[in-house]
């Protein structure tokens, strides 16, 4: 998709085959659907809020075909899932896999371009190391799609990338075809600590906000220049093409395009709604300041990430249609995380249109998004909220899909969606839950009974892994 705002005349090169585009850096991901498969007699949480007991899921050509009891599927491979649960593949909106890879050696600290508070021109995908062993462990935990973001050292950290969680030698081969990039911004302590400690701006929260505002003001100016150029070019071309030589202005000069500015391009893309905005922000008051910033510069915030105080403004977030991407039990590691509570997810989920998301930010947490959701669900239930599993599963499937702008493709088990499916050994909201089978586009990506040997990551090849992940 044309998330790039200004690529001159070459914008509309159409995609053929598996390639979404032949633009540079575009996806080369290819689905490899397996044979038609029917998963029989499972407890299905379909991601839309429905629970179907004793239900089948039919997959064909990499797509969900049908969900329901007793499906007719004579030609399909049968998976007996009696006693097991089936959910959509899990989606993490906040990962640093590949950009802060394992092992955490100096050579792979690629997640924060902490050299300037506004580095909107950088793209996380250019830091992604596909051999990060964390991709495979996340996959074993049922994660089929993830957004890899730059870190939070900067006010505006750069563009994130949404990946299919498949083993690959290039990030392009993982890149989710057609998914928009995300813009990563950060509130609060991190940027002001990083730059303040260097006696540079920002060193205060007011410095943070001035920093975002100036950057977007510059982007508005840049957008005006681009629009003026587009108008001038159109006028020039229309003049040159007018009936033969008659009106042609021999002296007219073709207008010069303004110099591209990668930072401002990204911000303009955000203002045009082409790049969803994801903001690292802990405190309730700061989130509301960011809502004002979004109003001033007319962009939409997809989600506040970490959002430890999101529960204090749950109604406002729901009204604005902004998701809260949250942990269940992280708190206290810094002042802006001091007010964390277990019920954050449940309280953000509670209002009409509330959008709670469990996110990881972490190579361990991403392996157990279901258990983080289980904690948030059970604490919410104890606080008196009615949160059945079929509701809570949305926190790790359809809600993150919505925040990433890919809800039309993944996140539920509705017919026509990409067949990203997890067959769990039991109720996924349990500490004992493990994915038995993970499908990506209808292909078996994980079979717990037949783990990959050797490991998927080149890095782990020949290392003392002891045959276990």
């Amino acid at each position, binding site marked *: 998709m044309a998330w790039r705002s200004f690529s001159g005349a070459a914008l509309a090169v159409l995609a053929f085959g598996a390639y979404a585009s032949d633009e540079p850096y575009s996806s080369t991901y290819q689905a490899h659907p397996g044979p038609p498969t029917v998963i029989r007699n499972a407890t299905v949480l379909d991601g839309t809020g429905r629970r179907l007991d004793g239900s089948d899921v039919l997959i064909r050509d990499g797509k969900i075909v049908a969900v329901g009891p007793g499906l007719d599927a004579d030609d399909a491979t049968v998976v007996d899932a009696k006693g097991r649960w089936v959910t959509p593949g899990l989606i993490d909106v906040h990962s640093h896999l590949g950009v802060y890879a394992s*092992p955490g050696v100096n050579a792979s600290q690629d997640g924060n371009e902490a050299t300037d508070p506004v580095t909107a021109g950088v793209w996380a995908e250019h830091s992604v190391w596909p051999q990060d062993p964390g991709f495979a462990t996340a996959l074993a935990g049922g994660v089929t799609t993830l957004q890899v973001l730059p870190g939070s050292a900067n006010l505006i950290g750069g563009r994130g990338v949404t990946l299919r969680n498949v083993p690959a030698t290039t990030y392009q081969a993982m890149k989710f075809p057609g998914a928009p990039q995300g813009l990563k911004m950060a509130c609060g302590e991190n940027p002001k600590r990083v730059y303040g400690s260097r006696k540079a701006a920002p060193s205060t929260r007011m410095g943070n906000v001035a920093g975002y505002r100036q950057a977007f003001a510059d982007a508005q100016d840049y957008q005006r220049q681009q629009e003026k150029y587009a108008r001038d070019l159109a006028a020039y071309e229309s003049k040159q093409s007018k009936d033969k030589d008659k009106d042609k202005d021999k002296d007219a000069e073709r207008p010069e395009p303004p110099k591209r500015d990668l930072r401002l391009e990204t911000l303009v893309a955000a203002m045009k709604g082409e790049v969803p905005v994801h903001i690292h922000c802990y405190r309730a008051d700061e989130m509301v300041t960011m809502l004002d910033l979004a109003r001033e510069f007319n962009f939409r915030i997809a989600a506040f990430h970490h959002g430890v105080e999101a529960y204090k403004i749950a109604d406002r977030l729901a009204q604005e249609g902004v998701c809260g991407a949250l942990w269940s039990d992280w708190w*206290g590691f810094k002042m802006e995380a001091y007010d964390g509570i277990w019920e954050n997810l449940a309280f953000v989920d509670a209002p009409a249109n509330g959008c709670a998301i469990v996110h990881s930010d972490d190579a361990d947490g991403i392996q157990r998004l279901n258990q983080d959701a289980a904690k948030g669900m059970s604490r919410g239930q104890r606080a*008196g909220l009615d949160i059945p599993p079929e509701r809570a599963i949305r926190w790790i499937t359809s809600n993150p899909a919505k925040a990433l702008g890919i809800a039309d493709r993944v996140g539920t088990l509705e017919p026509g969606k990409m067949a990203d499916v997890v067959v769990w050994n039991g109720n996924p909201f349990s500490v004992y839950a493990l994915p038995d089978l993970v499908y990506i586009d209808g292909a078996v990506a994980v079979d717990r009974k037949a783990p990959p040997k050797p490991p998927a990551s080149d890095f782990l090849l020949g290392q003392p892994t002891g045959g276990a992940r």
Partner: protein
Amino acid sequence: MNRVIQRLVPGILGALVVLAGTTQAQDVLIRGAKVYTQTERGTLENADVLVRNGRIAEVGKGLASGAGVTVIEARGRPLTPGLFGGITALGIEEVSLEPSTVDSSTVYEEARGTAFEPRPEFDVTPAFNPDSVAIGVNRVEGITFAMVAPTALPDGTMFGGQGAVARLDGRTDAFAAASRTLFVDLGASATASSGKSRAAQFMLLEQATRETQPAKPLRDGDARLLTPTGREVLARYLAGGRIAFSVDRAADIRQVLAYSERNGVHPVIIGGAQAWQVAALLAKSHVPVVLDPFLDLPGSFDQLGASLENAARLHQAGVPITFTNFSMPTHAAHKVRHAAGLAVAHGLPWDAALAALTTTPAQVFGLGTELGRIAPGYSADLVLWSGDPLEVTTVAEQVWIEGRSQSMRSRQTELRDRYRPATTPSKP
């Protein structure tokens, strides 16, 4: 706070019970619980536990309550010993990134102008604040005791200093002398603080050890690593004391075992990502491992081979294990319960996982006759659970420490109740 907090126990208790605050001693009869005794009696269904004067008095069926005994109807719910929260900075770290609230480490290099200043005498226990909010947050999750340990900073020294196990009920004399432990960091994560080399770490460890030996006096003018106090302290730990080594790599663990044998030290391995590779050796020397069952990625080259099956393999080999949570060891110390469940999902027997949170850590840190079992004579540190104690959807319904029923409120529950959605439909 001496105020008696009166509150209703959630309806599930089935009876209207007034719970006292933390300062009022109680005789309690917990009736009809599934009691995980952690003794040879195993798990008793529908059993009673009688607590008198802060101690377990009796465990059995149909126990009489007697006058002045508060009766709690457990209705079949699980009752376990209080859980161990791992290697934490509880009470010595309020907000991790606020230096004014953190007392878990020390650096002297600025004062001395040297990069390496080992201070084994650094002892975190006098800095302990029993009123820390983080303690309450973990206590209501069933964490009743935890190791309060120094943290070696990257620019500190490989000798982290001394810690001890704290009881988490707000008492001021929280530490048991028998649990005192010296912490030493080795391996890749500590090389920056100790000669930028693993070899330098063992060189410095040997030199410090030698300085404690009066039979080998130093000549005037010899550079000494340790202060006189430091030498005294290290000497105490070398005379049969307990030293916890933070170390991951199998090769380094072997070095630690050899050093410990040479010097009469009882080592505890903290971390041990590759411990499963030397499980037989650890079992033979009966050296315990404090591990994080979540760890399955190589955070460093020392952790290659990190496995979700580490706990199961060590247990299988006969190595005593207990758990800690490295990702958020203090504020989310309670996550050891999640970790234990995860270890079960990856092959550790369920009973061994509960033992790793109760009996084993009590034994490892010298409190094996006081904590970690529900048996007559043991301190009545108990947790009544809403369900399977290792399940992530389970919560602690009531916590007792030394027989005193603990307030089940924390700063987090205060925040929760202030912001609880107004339109909440009440569930029965």
